[in-house]
């Protein structure tokens, strides 16, 4: 049997991915802070075909919540896989008004998930499995309107790249996912969104990347072209742009 732990499972993107995994017959553990919603999700996954499903408490800002989850995973049999959907994007204006938010943005988008994965890595090395880390196109280049969030995502992406290198030695795999705009609660009502993808479509593309052992994916795929162009803009011009 194979077990998935989904972190940030109250996200609609995570929920859709958890359902994809449930329909393959894996055991799926969903973790986050809203236990009522997570328990309802576990029931849903169970009805959709998961071999087993349960809700666990996880707070990216509270590392004491990590070890109990690793322990539960240790008690399962077979492969152990983890998918990190945890994320938080306060507006740049809020951050400018309250710079201490930078610590929390870093903890939720980068250091919390990275430390969790570090505590879990030995088990994955022993049993095999896959790590899915959701970062963002926002991490590809620091932009005027979103660079604190972007830098945390960039940090997490770099961590995942190194973790891939490490886990590759034991045959385990890491998929870095860079979504463009996705139609979730994070973007609902936010201005300036375009080409917004459905969470279910993003989840399907992540499931496919896991199956095909892709290293880094942009989803939807056309964001690769957009980001390649954005990365090519020379810094002397880029610094004058404000998007």
């Amino acid at each position: 049997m194979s077990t998935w732990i989904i972190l940030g499972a109250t996200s609609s993107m995570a929920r859709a991915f958890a359902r994809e995994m449930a329909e393959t017959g894996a055991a799926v553990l969903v973790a986050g802070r809203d236990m009522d919603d997570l328990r309802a999700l576990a029931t849903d996954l169970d009805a959709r075909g998961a071999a087993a499903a349960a809700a666990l408490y996880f707070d990216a800002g509270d590392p004491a919540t990590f070890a109990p989850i690793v322990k539960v995973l240790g008690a399962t049999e077979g492969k152990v896989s983890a998918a990190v959907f945890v994320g938080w994007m306060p507006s740049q204006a809020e951050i400018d008004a309250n710079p201490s938010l930078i610590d929390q943005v870093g903890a939720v988008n980068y250091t919390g998930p990275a430390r969790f994965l570090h505590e879990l890595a030995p088990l994955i090395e022993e049993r095999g499995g896959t790590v899915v880390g959701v970062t963002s196109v926002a991490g590809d280049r620091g932009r005027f309107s979103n660079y604190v969030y972007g830098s945390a995502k960039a940090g997490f992406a770099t961590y995942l790249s190194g973790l891939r290198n490490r886990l590759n030695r034991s045959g385990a795999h890491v998929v870095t996912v860079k979504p463009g705009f996705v139609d979730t609660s994070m973007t609902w009502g936010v201005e300036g969104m375009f080409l917004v993808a459905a969470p279910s479509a993003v989840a399907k593309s992540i499931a496919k990347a896991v199956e095909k052992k892709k290293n880094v994916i942009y989803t939807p795929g056309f964001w690769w072209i957009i980001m390649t162009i954005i990365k090519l803009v020379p810094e002397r011009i880029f610094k004058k742009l404000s998007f």
Partner: protein
Amino acid sequence: MLWKETDYAGWARVHKARGNVARPERSTQLTRLMEEAPAPAYGMLRSYNDSPLNDGGAAIDMTRMDKILHFDPETGVLEVEAGVQLGDLIRLFAPKGWVPAVVPGTGFPTVGGAIAHDIHGKNHHVLGSFGQHVLSVTLLQPGGKRVEVTAESDAALFRATMGGIGQTGVIVSAKLQMIPTPGNGMTVKETRVGSFDEFLALLDGSDYRYNVGWIDSTATGSALGRGIFEEAELSGGPDKAGGAPALPVPINLPGFALSAPTVKTFNALYWRKVPARGRTHVMSIAQHVFPLDKLHDWYRLYGKRGFHQFQCVVPLQNASVLKEIVQKIARSGLASPLAVIKRMGEGRAGMLSFPMEGYTLAIDFPARDKAETLIKALEAMTVEAEGRLYLGKDALASGDQIKGMYPEWEAWAAQAAKADPDGVLITDIVRRLQLREIGK
């Protein structure tokens, strides 16, 4: 909870709305909304008209409230949140031996929408309407009051909710009795039908549990009402119950795409697709019951102005009026190829439910002034035949015409007033038809 100011529309694109929409992702958010800023709910916006719209006001998009809350593989009783789509239920539960008792001609509608229009399917003559298989429904009323209603606990509220276009509260979840299926497939028998009278005889005589007729709306003279009759049963067969992935219609097509000559040619080919001696084949459940889901966003075929669907049901004894209706449509040359005929049973679960024992006809028209004049004439003929128009589709009838067809509307309006005294759940269709204005 964040509101988003957005444009949205009924499926046929004739009715549009702009307003603040909230889209709760979990039940605590929905509860808070109904306490603090109650608003009418909508599902997948598969109603053709203004039934799910609240132009200039607020609305709640229920599509993310889509969890399965409980499934009993022994009894086929399923409890789900209202935003679950019926096609997903077929895909998930047919392999386990169960399917929803009633599904419409598309898999996208939500359970909430299916209840709010007390929808009917190809098996209406046997199993009745969707609401007749609802064991209980949980409503969130303005102010945050949560009530679980069954036909026994509060018959009036239950009957005002089934087919009640969302006016008795936001439907949060429902318990459904599914029906058993031997597998993921349907065995479908197709028969060529030469004329309208032959069609009625076949509809009357069919002993299949699922049946529907496709009428060539362009044929006239002795071929009037010719078409294809499809009769089907749930069966084993394919390893999946879902349909193939849909092809998109990426842009609005120009007006001539569905002009009379194109439609006539298409229909003639469609009719000949089935050999004169008929044929039988096995397909997945979704392929048979959701034929249009092969094309995504197909309303775009009708261009920017959109289209109308005329759907009426007339009592058995007034079938001759239905024949006149088909004749009038054929002579007009205004219709699209999509005309569907079916015999309905008596089954209905609510005060504003559409079904009555009789024949129902549904047909699309590109939105043009001429078509609207024709539809109004067809509506008048429906009144004369003591028939009914469907509240999930009609866009042109008057409030008085509709009220005449739904004699229980005042009892319904009283229940709506009790559940929603301040009228915060009122939608565009309710305003257009003055459905909640008792004694005016």
